[in-house]
């Protein structure tokens, strides 16, 4: 059964995850994911100072403190880059560790000074403790998630433009820097709101994991936002439920583990972009290349005395292809079943009419490309996939006719 308290916490972390997924999508595409991480770590000293200044645990004071020191951290990153020649990754590393170190020192100081009740409160800002969420916190979180949703829906077009091509956006007159700042502001909002539930160390994962996982499933930004938002929601909800019921571990790590599972499954099994699909694609690609090499070998063995057709021995083919003997036998058997080759009693092979046509077609395509690429090497990069596109479909008719004429003149046109 879900009691009222658990329901509040579940609703809170789900909304947090969904908002983080939406904003994280733009942050990841814009290459700002690491900045989100710096923001989370840099927020810790602010939490402690908020506590110290008020002398008691007040969510509002701590979150305002977190936001201020987080933003200060980002400004220091920007300042370091501008004033010195330090690269961004180094600047982020410096800010992240220095601010977080200061936060840890401050929290240790508070724990030795203050009364016992405060201790747990501060710890939850480091590793996250969603169970401590109250109805009032839920209000904050829903407001932040709603702000993220509204901003993304209203400014979808503007964010897409600025994230894809900032220079073009500026030429068109969009305030690219302000839109960028708004995006970073939303990132900081999500980070700060997520701090009590997920903790300073892991809050960036909430931004990065759903977005990175969503990218595997779609080629469209709108769909990516939907998927990332849903992944974030599932991540928050499942993480909270598991950490509340199965173990007494802090929520942050469990949420991140759930997110890691989503990401891992996406990276492996997503159609087209996933590792498995890419591997299958690669295997098919190699098989196609080797098959083409074999048919070319068949053609070139027959070519010298064409139109007379002589039988071809396995050894000759093994010599000219990259198949292992077992693979070659399998491929030949396959060709036999498709009526492309006929196996003679002496073990040699004769191509059928269809087999001969296949060999000629493959060889012609190969020689057209070969000719084209040696004549116009500067154009190699302009064709996306040489293995799939046939010369006839990728090149214009005139060029193909020219290439054919050149091959015919040499007597090499199949």
């Amino acid at each position, binding site marked *: 059964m879900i009691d009222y308290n658990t329901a509040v916490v579940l609703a809170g972390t789900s909304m947090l995850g969904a908002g983080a997924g939406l904003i994280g999508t733009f942050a990841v595409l814009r290459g700002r994911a690491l900045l989100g991480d710096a923001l989370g770590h840099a927020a810790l000293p602010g939490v402690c100072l908020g506590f110290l200044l008020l002398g008691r645990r007040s969510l509002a004071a701590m979150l305002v403190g977190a936001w201020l020191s987080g933003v200060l951290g980002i400004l220091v990153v920007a300042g370091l880059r501008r004033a010195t020649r330090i690269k961004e990754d180094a600047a982020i590393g410096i800010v992240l560790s220095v601010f977080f170190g200061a936060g840890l020192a401050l929290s240790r100081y508070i724990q030795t000074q203050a009364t016992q009740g405060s201790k747990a409160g501060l710890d939850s800002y480091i590793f996250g403790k969603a169970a401590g969420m109250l109805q009032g916190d839920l209000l904050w979180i829903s407001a932040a998630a709603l702000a993220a949703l509204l901003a993304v829906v209203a400014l979808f077009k503007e964010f897409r433009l600025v994230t894809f091509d900032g*220079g*073009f956006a500026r030429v068109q007159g969009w305030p690219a820097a302000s839109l960028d700042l708004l995006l970073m502001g939303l990132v900081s909002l999500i980070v700060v709101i997520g701090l009590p539930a997920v903790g300073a160390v892991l809050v960036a994962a909430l931004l990065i994991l759903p977005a990175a996982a969503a990218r595997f499933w779609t080629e469209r930004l709108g769909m990516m936002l939907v998927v990332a938002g849903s992944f974030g929601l599932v991540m928050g909800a499942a993480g909270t439920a598991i950490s509340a019921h199965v173990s007494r571990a802090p929520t942050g790590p469990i949420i991140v583990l759930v997110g890691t599972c989503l990401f891992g499954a996406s990276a492996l099994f997503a159609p087209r972009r996933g590792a498995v699909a890419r591997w299958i694609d690669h295997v098919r690609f190699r098989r196609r290349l080797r098959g083409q090499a074999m048919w070319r070998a068949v053609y070139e063995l027959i070519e010298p005395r064409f139109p007379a057709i002589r039988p071809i021995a396995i050894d000759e083919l093994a010599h000219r292809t990259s198949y292992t003997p077992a693979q070659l036998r399998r491929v030949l058997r396959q060709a036999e079943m498709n009526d492309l080759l006929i196996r003679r009693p002496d073990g040699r092979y004769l191509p059928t009419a269809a087999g001969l046509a296949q060999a000629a077609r493959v060889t012609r395509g190969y020689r057209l490309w070969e000719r084209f690429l040696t004549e116009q090497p500067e*154009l190699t990069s302009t064709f996306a996939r040489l293995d799939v596109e046939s010369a006839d479909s990728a090149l214009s008719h005139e060029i193909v006719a020219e290439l054919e004429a050149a091959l015919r003149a040499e007597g090499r046109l199949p």
Partner: protein
Amino acid sequence: MILDVHNVTVAYHRKPVLWDIDLTLQRPSLVGIVGPNGAGKSTLIKAILGLVPLASGRVTLFGQSCQKQRRLIGYVPQRESVDWDFPVSVLDVVLMGTYGGLGWFRRPRRAQRDWALECLRRVGLADLAGRQIGQLSGGQQQRTFLARAIAQRAEIYFMDEPMAGVDAATERVVFELLGELREQGKTVLVVHHDLRTVAEYFEQVVMLNMRLVAAGPTCTTFTHDNLAKTYGGRLGILDDAAEALAARERSV
């Protein structure tokens, strides 16, 4: 007066990239910008468009500052300037050309989609409208950017190396497009790297090497003297230049 660049200097970390450039364009034409690597060709375009800060000087377009003339400007950035793995389709990118006219919050509708498709047809990519942009060849990506600029319905176009590393078909599309724009009375400034085709493509030429070496009608400005001044004693380039001049004489 279409374009007036006055005393413009651009510097990165105090190292000047463009130094005291004065350039005016009185009437619509096709303008090629040439010069050696690092001469500041792209920077000149970016300075005019306000994408890099000016250390000194000012730029006016049609008599006003560029900030006030945004709707009149079309822009084709270098192909390498964006992430082609970005999750958008070819049509999405071309639609971005209509964003300026739409203004805040409004989404592209049927009219904009039809117009974007028409622009894609003009560069020969209508069949690929639904593809993710990373699946295009280099030349097709370049044509997508061109279609986006056409979709802006601008008066003056700035193109940064639109013919660098593209196939013959794309180069032909760009060339035809330049002609169409010229017929419509538009002005196009093109950063160009191939000296052999300058005389064929451009009525005016701007020769740049940090300083403005020469600017004016191609037939009187694109001379051996000016090429030697622009490229210095670089032998290979001068061979190219000789070939370019020969090509010009043939076309005259």
